[in-house]
């Protein structure tokens, strides 16, 4: 089972802190991969404009690197910042790593007139096109994310070693939100695209445990024929896409996510003030019911962080912190490592009906229960 950790703080911090949290939980992963996702970025050597989309990924060959440059140019994206990692390649298991990239672009002028939706579609299609291009050339190019204020780093190996190999402790990159996952390979081959966190149009999630209902959920998402619903090298990618579907396609409030992936039981719905609506929602989204056991940790473009469990709650996760700094982790020791100066008696372990939210202000935790009234007005 993978180990997952998230830290969110008002003051930007080094991703190395999340890796230390990961190190505390090291019994739980097998070195099959590390994934990091950073939001609210600050660079030591560049004053970053958070509107600039950042492209993260790996060019495995020089040729792929050139193709990438050409492609982005042709698409009209203008390079503004190119973060050069001070890598120590000898510490990385894989040898086909020509270059890790994390580059900020200025949007093409042609997009200035476009609507928000159209711009978001263009960003996603650009990432998918790069991914496709890599796949067409023997997987020599891997693109993780392309989105304003989001950076993604994934590599195969032990988390802290990767952090050292990429020199993440040098404080050249900092962020206000950092998601980290140490992967325990469950079902599928070791693959860079199988490392969490998964990302689509500003929405990211990571998961521990196994998604036993993976195939029916994947089949349903593929049937939506939405270009971003692809990949599925890991069963956990479906959680990200369900959250995306809930927020972006159905345009439902965040509360709906939990009602979709783990609907209340029939008798509970019968006693719920919005039971009729929620029953209908459960029926129409029935193929998206997850069957765990999982803890899902997610972040949204406005830096909101969330944590939910599956219905069986066989994968506990803990949240703790203090105003201004909060941590979610699959193990308590992970929270301890990331926010040591907190009151641990206030730590909270969500139950099956809870959604834990840390809003962008980071003043306090919000705990939503599925039994609470559902904000129907927002649904309309």
């Amino acid at each position: 089972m993978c180990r997952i950790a998230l830290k969110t703080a008002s003051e930007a911090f080094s991703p190395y802190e999340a890796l230390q949290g990961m190190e505390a939980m090291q019994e739980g992963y097998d070195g099959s991969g590390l994934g990091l996702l950073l939001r609210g970025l600050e660079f030591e050597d560049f004053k970053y404009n958070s509107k600039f989309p950042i492209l993260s990924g790996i060019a495995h060959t020089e040729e792929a690197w050139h193709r990438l440059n050409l492609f982005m140019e042709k698409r009209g994206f203008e390079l503004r910042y190119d973060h050069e990692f001070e890598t120590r390649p000898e510490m990385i298991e894989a040898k086909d790593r020509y270059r890790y990239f994390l580059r900020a672009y200025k949007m093409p002028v042609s997009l200035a007139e476009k609507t928000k939706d159209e711009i978001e579609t263009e960003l996603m299609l650009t990432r998918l096109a790069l991914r496709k291009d890599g796949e067409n050339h023997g997987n020599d190019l891997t693109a993780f994310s392309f989105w304003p204020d989001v950076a993604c780093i994934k590599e195969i190996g032990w988390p802290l070693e990767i952090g050292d190999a990429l020199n993440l402790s040098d404080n050249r990159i900092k962020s206000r939100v950092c998601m980290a996952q140490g992967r325990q390979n469950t079902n599928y081959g070791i693959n860079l695209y199988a490392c969490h966190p998964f990302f689509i149009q500003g929405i990211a999630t990571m998961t521990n445990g196994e998604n036993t209902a993976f195939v029916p959920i994947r089949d349903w998402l593929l049937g939506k024929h939405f270009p971003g619903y692809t990949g599925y090298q890991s069963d956990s990618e479906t959680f990200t896409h369900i959250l995306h579907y809930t927020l972006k396609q159905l345009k439902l409030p965040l509360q709906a996510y939990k009602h979709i992936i783990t609907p209340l039981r029939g008798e509970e719905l019968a006693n719920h003030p919005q039971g009729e609506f929620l029953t209908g929602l459960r029926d129409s989204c029935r193929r998206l019911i997850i069957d765990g056991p999982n803890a899902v940790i997610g972040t949204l473009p406005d830096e909101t962080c969330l944590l939910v469990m599956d219905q069986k709650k066989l994968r506990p996760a803990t949240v703790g912190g203090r105003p201004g700094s909060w941590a979610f982790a699959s193990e308590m020791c992970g929270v301890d490592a990331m926010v040591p100066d907190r009151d641990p008696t206030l730590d909270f372990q969500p139950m099956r009906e809870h959604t834990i939210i840390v809003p962008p202000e980071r003043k306090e935790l919000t705990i939503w229960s599925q039994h609470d009234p559902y904000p129907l007005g927002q649904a309309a």
Partner: protein
Amino acid sequence: MVSTRSVSVGPGSLSYTDLPWIIQHREDRCTLCGHCTAVCPKEAIYLAYRRQRMPKLDVLKKKRGNEYRTFVGIRQKKNMANACIGCSMCSMVCPNEAIQPVPNTNEHRTLFFNNQKGEPMKRGGRRNSVGPTLLDQIMFNRISMLTDPALDAGRHEFNITTTLGRTLDPVEFLKRTREGGWIPPTREIFPFVIGSMSFGALSPNMWLGLLQGVAYCNEVLGIPVVMCTGEGGCPPWILKSPYLKYIVLQIASGYFGWDEIIRAIPDMQCDPAAIEIKYGQGAKPGDGGLLMWFKVSKLIARLRGVPEGVDLPSPPVHQTLYSIEESVMKMIQTLSTAFDHKVPVYPKISASTSAKSVLNNLVRNPYAGGLLIDGIDGGTGAAYNVSMDATGHPIASNVRECYLDLVKQGKQNEIPIFAAGGIGKNGNVTQNGLALIMLGASGVHIGKYVMQAAAGCLGNEKNRCNVCNVGICPKGITSQNPKLYRRLDPDLVAERVGDVFMSIRTEMKKIMAPLGRSQSLPVGMSDALGIADKDAADRLNIKYVC
């Protein structure tokens, strides 16, 4: 050698070894009580007096002579009309274990004579093919082992119901919710449905027992089982009772019983579970119901609105049709309207290479609440033997094809596919049902299995009994003759219905728990399936394992 004329042997003459079942009778045990001959539904055995010559030689008187002994015994008739069907009622009633039918292992010649008076063989039951079915061979092999241990089937909480009725795409659901539009009705039901067996095919006691059992499952055991009426209507006392919510009312090409149903609508206390429109049946595709005059009793005649004692062959198709697509659309819409659009309406068809086109019509019909596909191994109360044995399509690949077609369109959650035909044929009812569910069915219908398990139906695929069509069911399950159906105690049937569904529920958990599934029925979870038959694995798009 004598000339053949002096011996009564004709082309159709049969000997014991020509019959499918041979009666073994032990004269040393027989008390001549007569129970066996009285109970035999085929009048296949009779009490016979025989005389035996005892040669007698008086040596002293040098005289030869004879003495005669008279004895009594049970004998078997050898004509086709009275050939033993192997039901074993005789051995069940025998107080002294003196009699039993044994299957004839020789090739029996009755196969060549079962077309007396030019009428091909008709029977009840299902396809006479023995051995493990394809469904029996499917294994559930995606066991949660490494990081996520299997669940505890005994203590964990499981959600194992399914949706009957059309479900909207989430986007459309939200749009209609906002605009106050019509949300199609759905029911949350147990995925094993008691399939359509008509009031007419089944005896009143069988029907009552099933309904009692279903009510008990729902109201006491918390298993939301529903049952389908089959063609032939529904007794008026049920139509106006609160039990109607457990009943799927079927309308078929004879429209039998629908006068009563339509007239009862204003007095209904609740809506029925659903309406099933039968276009076809797996056991006899392209054929209608075949209720023969023997079974059209006064009660049946009243329910169906016909005179007593007449044959009731339903036409093969709905006679009002101009084209099937149009009719399916219109009938579904009409019936949905009749129940104020509050009851799911779905068609039942025979499994067929053309099932996909029916399904695609339904996808575009906003009133269609699902599709039931009935495979070649489905049972029936009456059909021509050739229809049952040789006509139709196996259910597994048909359901799989239809499901994958829906998946391609992203519609698999909108139109539930239900599967029927041979589920539990060899007793593995839960395994067969869940295999179909993981291939893509939202649920399954079981008919013959319920008759066998809940009422002790004696029929099997070696053509044992299978006389449902002529109203002489020795157990009283499919007879309208009070002398026969009083043999069946409805309370005991109800008890068995409870047993059957409790056991299916437990077995479902036992299958789902190792797969790590508990929160929703694993519809389409084909990654959990494997079969040791490469061709079948390829065809079903599941794993080949060996």
